């Protein structure tokens, strides 16, 4: 066909002119948050990542956010209004935004959407998650090594797969350095109630727990541990300033790593609607610097396993793994697939609660 080269040239020119047009004005990136950016936890971390990428990309992008958008009737309107107002890329950062995002995306094919923690994609909707459980495993290794009562406490919000994965990974990690360790879980049924998080932590300390961690928003658990003189392991961000003596390390999130990639892809014109699940390897999750109290051999061991996970030599959920009832769930030499991890609803042996 003679036309083909011509078409290709036209397409290239068109593509170039579109691209150069896009260069004229910054890429507009919108974020939709479920809680206020001042929640000190989930949304706070996403917004911190937003500020980091805004700084990095300079005048190539323009970012904005809408906070405290309730899942349900309000979220669809907010996502749609952002779409209608010329935002090119929209991040929706809560599970409950999944269906509204997909619904709005059908109406705005030129806008690109990225939904956090869900499982559906569409022509212009990708989704992203962080393998927080990998960092949890490393944090668990540290906690296990530091426990002398062999009892570790875990304050958790809701038994959804994301939280269960974290508890399981943490427990497996703790057992890797301390085979006799038990993890006690207390559910508080809310993401954000600092006083209740603190009470839950104290109730665990009463049960002879000497290391604490949590899957809730605030650093209240770290403060409780500091006040009572037991160790703690943080989550979301490095919380060592809330517990200089107690805070051993933390499973930290670096959402900016994902945002950086996605924004760059849109700028380059290579964005695709993918479901990505990044972890230690990509730098989305990590462990915070260790407390002086953590002995050298533990730090070394954790760093070794970290490299093994990054290199793919070690998986967090590799067999043999038993459930609470003592049944073999993952055979020796096998590991849980991503599909199984997404739906994870059982607890590994050694978890109490």
């Amino acid at each position, binding site marked *: 066909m003679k036309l083909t080269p011509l078409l290709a040239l036209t397409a290239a020119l068109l593509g170039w002119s579109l691209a150069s047009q896009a260069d004229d004005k910054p890429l507009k990136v919108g974020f939709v948050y479920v809680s206020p950016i001042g929640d000190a936890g989930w949304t706070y971390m996403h917004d911190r990542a937003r500020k980091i990428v805004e700084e990095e990309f300079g005048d190539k992008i323009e970012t904005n*956010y809408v906070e405290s*958008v*309730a899942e349900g*009737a*309000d979220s669809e309107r907010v996502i749609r209004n*952002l779409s209608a107002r010329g935002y090119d890329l929209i991040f929706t950062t809560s*599970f*409950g935004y999944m269906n509204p995002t997909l619904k709005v995306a059908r109406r705005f094919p030129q806008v690109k959407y990225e939904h956090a923690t869900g499982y559906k994609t569409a022509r212009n909707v990708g989704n992203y998650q962080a393998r927080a459980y990998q960092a949890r495993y490393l944090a668990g290794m540290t906690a296990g090594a530091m426990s002398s009562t062999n009892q570790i406490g875990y304050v958790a919000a809701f038994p*959804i797969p994301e939280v269960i994965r974290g508890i399981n990974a943490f427990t497996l990690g703790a057992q890797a350095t301390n085979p006799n360790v038990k993890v006690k879980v207390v559910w508080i049924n809310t993401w954000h109630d600092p006083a209740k998080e603190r009470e839950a932590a104290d109730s665990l300390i009463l049960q002879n727990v000497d290391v604490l961690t949590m899957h809730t928003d605030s650093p209240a658990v770290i403060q409780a541990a500091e006040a009572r003189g037991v160790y703690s392991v943080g989550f979301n961000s490095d919380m060592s300033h809330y517990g200089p003596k107690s805070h051993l390390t933390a499973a930290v999130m670096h959402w900016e790593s994902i945002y950086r990639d996605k924004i760059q892809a849109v700028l380059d014109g290579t964005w695709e609607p993918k479901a990505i699940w990044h972890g230690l390897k990509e730098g989305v999750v990590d462990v915070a610097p260790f407390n002086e109290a953590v002995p050298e051999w533990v730090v070394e061991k954790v760093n070794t396993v970290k490299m093994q996970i990054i290199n793919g030599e070690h998986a967090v959920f590799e067999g043999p793994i038993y459930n609470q009832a003592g049944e073999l769930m993952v055979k020796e030499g096998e590991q849980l697939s991503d599909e199984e991890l997404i739906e994870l*609803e059982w607890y590994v042996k050694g978890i109490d609660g």
Partner: protein
Amino acid sequence: MRIEKRLQPSQTMVYLSPILALVLTVFAGGLLFAALGHPPLESLAIFFIEPLRDTYGWSELAVKVTPLLLCATGLTLCFKAKIWNIGAEGQFVFAALIGGAVSLQLTEVQGFWVLPVILLSGALAGMAWAGIAALLLTHFNTNEILTTIMLNYIAVNLLLWGVHGPLKDPAGFNFPESALFAEHTLLPLLSFDYRVTVALFIALFMVVVIWVLLARSLLGFQLRVLGENRNAARFAGFNSRAIIWFLLLFSGAMAGLAAISETNGPVGQLIPTLSLGYGYAAIIVVFMGRMHPLGIVLASMLLGLTYLGGEMAQIDLGLPKSITGLFQGMLLFFLLGCDLLIHYRLVLKERAFGVATT
């Protein structure tokens, strides 16, 4: 300067005071925005005008207004009779729970009667919840402000228990929310492009109903008598207990319909944060609307607009949500405060033995 009671409520002020409140809000709001480094006029425009620039904006306003207005119609009658039902929130939430459970039960069942049954279940559930307060008021003489507030807390916890427990979506990965309702259990949309459902017409119809009730029936008079003195009603020759029951059950039914308009409308499932405080917001609507049917329509539109405007201000100006909250609170203070002028007047100077003027 002092405040003096008028002999008659001022008709001029009925219309003038909300305008005064708006002017004050615009003025103070402008100052607030300017002080925080945001262009005052543009900010105000984005709050009040931008959300309504297109049909979609109007349709979203209607979506917001529907549950507010339904709750407010019931409360208007109650408040006229000085029955302080603060429980629309609880009635809403309890009705959502029951209506949601019924909707989930009817997932597999088809039939023209499905939607009416769901609406009815919501209304009945709202009535049942309000009925508790009515029973406590008429038989035990307990203060309805207090009992309805307690019932709100209980209802919210029941809903939370429902979505964390028996009504949780079995295929929902343990997220605290119910399964999505089946398509045929949802209220019909007026247009596929927008989210407005037939519930808007139900709400507007109910506004007309209370208008007629208040203007053209004995009820309006009876409510006023009851409002003057709960015990005097007996002497006026009617059963105040029966009217208290009617008022609370009616407002419960309205809150119940509001709940269905939301769960089986734009939300489409049961979630923990279902109500967003519609029951409480409706109280503000009723006072802003001066307990007049037309007034509550305007007031619910204004309140709905500030919600939409708050989102717009975040999108367009990067105003944080906290500032929109400050602005909303200020607006409400002005609107509530300016009501004073209807029943009272400001006297600038003491006039010794002056001729009374109006």
